[in-house]
């Protein structure tokens, strides 16, 4: 009796928390099956301050409709094509970073060499910087290496990202030095120690890394946008999703749900910015003009800021 009552209480508590956490996700999935009409009826008053009508939080659609999925998957096959592009970008990054990081983290976590902590510190620093910080120098670097408009301009920085090194080093630290000392006594070389001891012991870490990298890179938007400017076919799915004009909502939701199964999508934030920024609207700058202005003022090679994504019709 007493043996299962405590686990049961624990489980109930944890389940309650899980339900709370899942509510937004469920809401998102449920609305992807609603018809246009129903979504407008329930949620169209959002963002208006003058109305006194509230939204109607709806958990069960009146009509279950596949209309939106049909639109995204069958009527406009472009989505699947872009989806494949995303996979082709994200897969090499994950595999590459996991491999490079496992090697490096072994050195950081289990070997002694001068300057180890200082070097690791540098890795951490760059990992914590927001993307905007290195955007321009990164662009210049990609240009110098001749990587612009090529997938490797996204993949290579991804492969050498500091996050994997950082995460796996933590797992390497968990390995007790006694194992390594013992292996050394038995005459094992460092490569052998890495393969037979470190690698099996950090397997859970590598698995976690893969999941986390997937989530992170599936969400990347800025990089493809800036390095692939002008190559419509190469844009990741994230770029395709339009800004949140009220009419595009259903589609965003629907795309979101398909994505949920695999990862995530973000819609382009710069476009949103351009549309919302009063200064931009006032001066009527086009992105092209902005780019030209920028190049003229800084003597940079022509930056093509032009967004390479298409809008879904409303």
């Amino acid at each position, binding site marked *: 009796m007493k043996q299962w009552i405590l686990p049961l209480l624990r489980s109930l508590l944890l389940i309650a928390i899980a339900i709370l956490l899942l509510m937004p996700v469920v809401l998102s999935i449920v609305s992807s099956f609603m018809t246009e009409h129903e979504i407008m009826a329930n949620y169209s008053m959002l*963002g208006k301050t003058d109305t006194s009508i509230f939204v109607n939080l709806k958990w069960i659609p009146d009509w279950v409709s596949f209309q939106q999925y049909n639109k995204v998957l069958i009527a406009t096959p472009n989505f699947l094509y872009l989806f494949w592009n995303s996979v082709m970008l994200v897969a090499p990054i994950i595999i590459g970073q996991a491999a490079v990081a496992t*090697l490096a983290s072994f050195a950081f976590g289990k070997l002694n060499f001068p300057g180890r902590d200082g070097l690791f510190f540098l890795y951490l620093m760059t990992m914590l910087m927001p993307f905007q910080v290195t955007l321009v120098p990164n662009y*210049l670097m990609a240009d110098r290496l001749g990587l612009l408009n090529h997938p490797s301009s996204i993949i290579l920085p991804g492969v050498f990202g500091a996050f994997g090194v950082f995460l796996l080093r933590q797992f390497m630290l968990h390995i007790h030095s006694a194992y390594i000392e013992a292996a050394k006594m038995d005459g094992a070389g460092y490569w052998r120690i890495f393969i037979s001891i470190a690698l099996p012991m950090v397997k859970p870490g590598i698995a976690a890394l893969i999941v986390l990298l997937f989530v992170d890179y599936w969400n990347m938007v800025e990089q493809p946008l800036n390095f692939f400017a002008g190559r419509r076919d190469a844009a990741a799915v994230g770029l395709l999703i339009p800004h949140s004009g009220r009419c595009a909502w259903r589609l965003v939701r629907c795309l*979101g749900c398909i994505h949920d199964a695999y990862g995530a999508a973000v819609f382009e934030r710069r476009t949103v910015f351009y549309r919302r920024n009063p200064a931009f609207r006032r001066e009527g700058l086009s992105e092209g003009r902005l780019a030209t202005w920028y190049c003229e003022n800084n003597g940079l090679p022509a930056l093509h800021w032009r967004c390479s994504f298409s809008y879904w019709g409303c």
Partner: protein
Amino acid sequence: MKLQRLSRKELLAAFVFLAPSIAGFSLFYLIPFGQSILYSFQDRIGGSFTLSNYKELLLSSSFQKAASNTFWFTAVSVPILVTVSLLLALLLNQRVFFRNWLRTAYVLPLVVPVASIVLVWQILFDWNGSLNVVMEHFGYSRQDWMKSEWAGLVIVLVYVWKNIGYNVILFLAGLQNIPDQYYEIADLEGAGPLRRLFGITLTYLTPTTFLVVLMSVLNSFKVFRETFLVAGAYPHDRIYMLQHYMNNMFLSLDIQKVSSAAVLMALCMTGLMFALFRTERIFRSYME
């Protein structure tokens, strides 16, 4: 003599293991960041040395606002997140039903696209949103959550919601790495549950905690995405973060200001990490 030969061998091994990572890392991260530092001291790209960028930056009221908001957001939300997720992980690591299902449920918010979830936040926190329906029902006046002092709280909530699964995975992985023998020995020696928690679990969890804290700080900067999508480039003063500032400066092509803001941010991060590193090393010496 033999010792020296061994350590030289170790040095060589370290170099071989690190070589691919260091090469790519310097090319794509270190050198670009160095260039950013350079830009922060120039009046324009390739211009002469100046400190005026920093002066302007520190005097600008929007930078001050952004910096203090970011600081407070991180200082408040990170401890909350770490504590809550540690508690959840400890609960999950005990005997519970549906453990795998629960774990998946906690992680799900992380993989949901920001875009589709932002709409849910709007449904909840809008002027006409669900939360206000509840408020009116109980006779309180409604709030414009995202455009008032409450906005800070909403963002903390969104941040905790999103990242809790991330941290729970990390904590669970760390917990599973603690050998069962330690607990068995503790049982034999008659250690109470509290002693076990502090003496074994938390002590051996130190590297993981270090990781989780850093990840939480890192992710506290990423909450910008949600904030931005809900509230735009110029949100309520309460949630105007450093990234809003940097993004706005970048888009108005003020690269010098972005760079100097970045350098200042890097300095603060250095201080923070220095403290974390120190703490970790102290705890690690306990472990060995």
